[in-house]
């Protein structure tokens, strides 16, 4: 084994420090495997840390970042394959050949760094800072002009843009490697070893995501909605299966001369689910309403009889609209803000809940579970205690996701305490992981009575 046990144990500590707790038996498995299966290089052994330790997709992504930070190496770099198209000139095609590619990229990286001039490694900035500086130079853009081709074939253009993207990613990687090498060989250089690992997207506040990150997170949020719907669906359906119907079994046995060859069981009775979801879309909710709506969208897509509402100063049923919508259209709901304003456009939880109770009663269903996404900021309006009592009587469980930081709950016009008293479970939800934990913590056994 090239990696030492001490290194693996230090990595374990490093993971703990970065809030990734993995059980000891996983490390034992890893050590067992590495001890008995000799790998050629340290990098290959590090790859097995990534293979054996995580137990879900999120852990896998997180551990990849941590490995990069701890071992200063990136794992699982896919072999790059360029497909030359006829518009490229021959020398360029030759340089993209898999055997020449590393040399080509290495040469370009050195040339670009030299062209930039003297890099001051004593400055307390990361390698990425210098990479971004180099990317701003004309020489860097010139390296990509190979890909400025004209073609009337859509697939050619597509492949070209793909080639360009991969080439650029690889070039950036080589530049960063070279910068690190130079930094290491420079006296008095600032070594950014103590910089925190890259912030995990799954733990990033929704509010601070860029458009690409947001798109990815919204897709994952929709999946969480589907997971929630599936869990709920199972609980509401499995109510009465498997009971023996003695009378029918007995009668059936008469056909076989009194032998109980076939047992007749009570059929499953599909009961209508009793889940109500509501999301505050007032201004104070900012971007969190979009994530809330996407979660609702995911639930509705899987579980069509769920009732979903948005509210500001009164509720509006958007179940039908969500059912027919596509994921890209969810944000359009927020654009139709004016449709959902019933009074003055400022959040009014009291009025919204009163309307909700009457809406639910009017369709005759016996609602049991309520999930609210909102910050409980009521613009200094009163909330009548009798309403809270009614809510408590009406719903067997109330789950509340509050996108506001916990330290601000019950400050200013927030009346979260009032609702928290009757909530089965409430939590701060500002990130994907918090959202996932929230959904995992919903105890559905309380849902169906």
């Amino acid at each position: 084994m090239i990696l030492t046990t001490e290194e693996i144990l230090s990595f374990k500590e490093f993971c703990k420090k970065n809030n990734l707790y993995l059980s000891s038996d996983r490390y034992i498995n890893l050590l067992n495997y590495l001890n008995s299966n000799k790998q050629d290089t340290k990098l290959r052994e590090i790859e097995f840390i990534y293979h054996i330790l995580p137990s879900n997709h999120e852990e896998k992504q997180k551990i990849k970042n941590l490995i990069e930070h701890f071992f200063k190496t990136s794992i699982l770099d896919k072999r790059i394959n360029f497909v030359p198209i006829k518009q490229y000139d021959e020398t360029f095609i030759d340089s993209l050949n898999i055997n020449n590619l590393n040399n080509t990229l290495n040469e370009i990286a050195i040339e670009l760094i030299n062209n930039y001039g003297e890099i001051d490694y004593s400055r307390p900035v990361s390698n990425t800072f210098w990479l971004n500086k180099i990317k701003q130079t004309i020489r860097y853009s010139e390296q990509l002009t190979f890909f400025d081709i004209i073609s009337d074939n859509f697939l050619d253009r597509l492949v070209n843009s793909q080639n360009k993207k991969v080439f650029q990613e690889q070039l950036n990687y080589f530049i960063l490697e070279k910068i690190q090498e130079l930094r290491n060989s420079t006296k008095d250089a600032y070594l950014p070893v103590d910089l925190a690992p890259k912030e995990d997207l799954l733990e990033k506040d929704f509010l601070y995501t860029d458009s690409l990150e947001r798109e990815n997170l919204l897709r994952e949020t929709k999946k969480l909605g589907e997971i929630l719907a599936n869990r709920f669906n199972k609980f509401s359906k499995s109510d009465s299966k498997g009971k023996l119907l003695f009378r029918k079994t007995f009668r059936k046995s008469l056909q076989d001369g009194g032998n109980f060859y076939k047992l007749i069981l009570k059929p499953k009775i599909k009961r209508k689910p009793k889940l109500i979801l509501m999301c505050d879309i007032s201004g104070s909710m900012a971007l969190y309403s979009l994530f809330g709506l996407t979660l609702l969208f995911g639930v509705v897509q899987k579980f069509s009889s769920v009732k979903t509402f948005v509210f500001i100063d009164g509720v509006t049923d958007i179940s039908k609209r969500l059912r027919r919508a596509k994921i890209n259209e969810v944000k359009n709901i927020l654009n139709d803000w004016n449709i959902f304003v019933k009074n003055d456009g400022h959040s009014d939880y009291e009025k919204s809940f009163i309307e909700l109770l009457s809406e639910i009663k009017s369709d005759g269903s016996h609602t049991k579970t309520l999930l609210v996404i909102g910050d409980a900021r009521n613009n200094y309006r009163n909330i009548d205690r009798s309403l809270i009592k009614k809510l408590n009587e009406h719903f067997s469980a109330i789950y509340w996701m509050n996108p506001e930081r916990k330290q601000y709950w019950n400050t200013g016009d927030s009346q979260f305490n009032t609702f928290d008293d009757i909530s089965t479970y409430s939590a701060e939800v500002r990130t994907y992981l918090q959202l996932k934990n929230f959904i995992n913590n919903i105890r559905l056994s309380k849902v169906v009575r």
Partner: protein
Amino acid sequence: MTNSQLDIENFKQNDYFADQELVDIVNASIYLKKPLLIEGPAGTGKTFLAKTLSKILDSELIRLQCHEGIDEDNALYEWNYKKQLISIQRDEKDKNLFSDEYLIERPILKALNSESVSVFLIDEIDRSDEEFEALLLEVLAENQVTIPELGTITAKSESIVILTSNGTRELSEALRRRCIYYYLDYPSVEIETNVILKNVEEISKEDAFKYATFSSMLRTLNLNKPPSLIETVEWVKFNFENNIKNLSSNLGILSKDSYDQKLIFEKIKESNDIND
């Protein structure tokens, strides 16, 4: 159990194009005798991996297809009530009604009783109920199962257990902890190119790569249901073998959602317009 390590070539010879990461994970799972839990979107080759592995190892594939409401009667064992009743009627007093003779083996028990190494596939575990997961824990961790009337039955040989999940619900930590985990995402352009080359007659590597790039680009479009590997291959096969050059043709093979089809069509049109 196989002692030698599998490599990419083993999979390739059986028409499965795997990357090194997947091969490493399969090797680790076999060596550590831990079940392999594979999660990922539908149509990425999770079930096919188990089938391929059984071919590579020349072993029997025992499959347990999970569904809602699956219980131990469907998965583990069942007593043959009819046979038991007949025995009672015949007054066969010397016979033990709860013996192997009256036991109907379901896939889990079949896998445990298998004399030779087998690949035991527990397909779409996420479709089953949480109670069923608990039933599996003993099998996955100890390779044994307890039948109240018969006692504990231990595996006669070491099966390779593969669990697949589409992630429609979160699996319990207890189950995950007992497995080696792998997320099988949509294939890389390189793998998809190889699959197209394998399945579409007379297509050049360049064309196969272009179609694979196209398919990979579609999966970034935020579609309701991104095209699976098999859908892409069928679409390319049909279009290429019928000499249909227009990418917007037969989108019904590639995508089964009208909204997605519209989005793909617009993307192609938009790109053509920019060029014009």
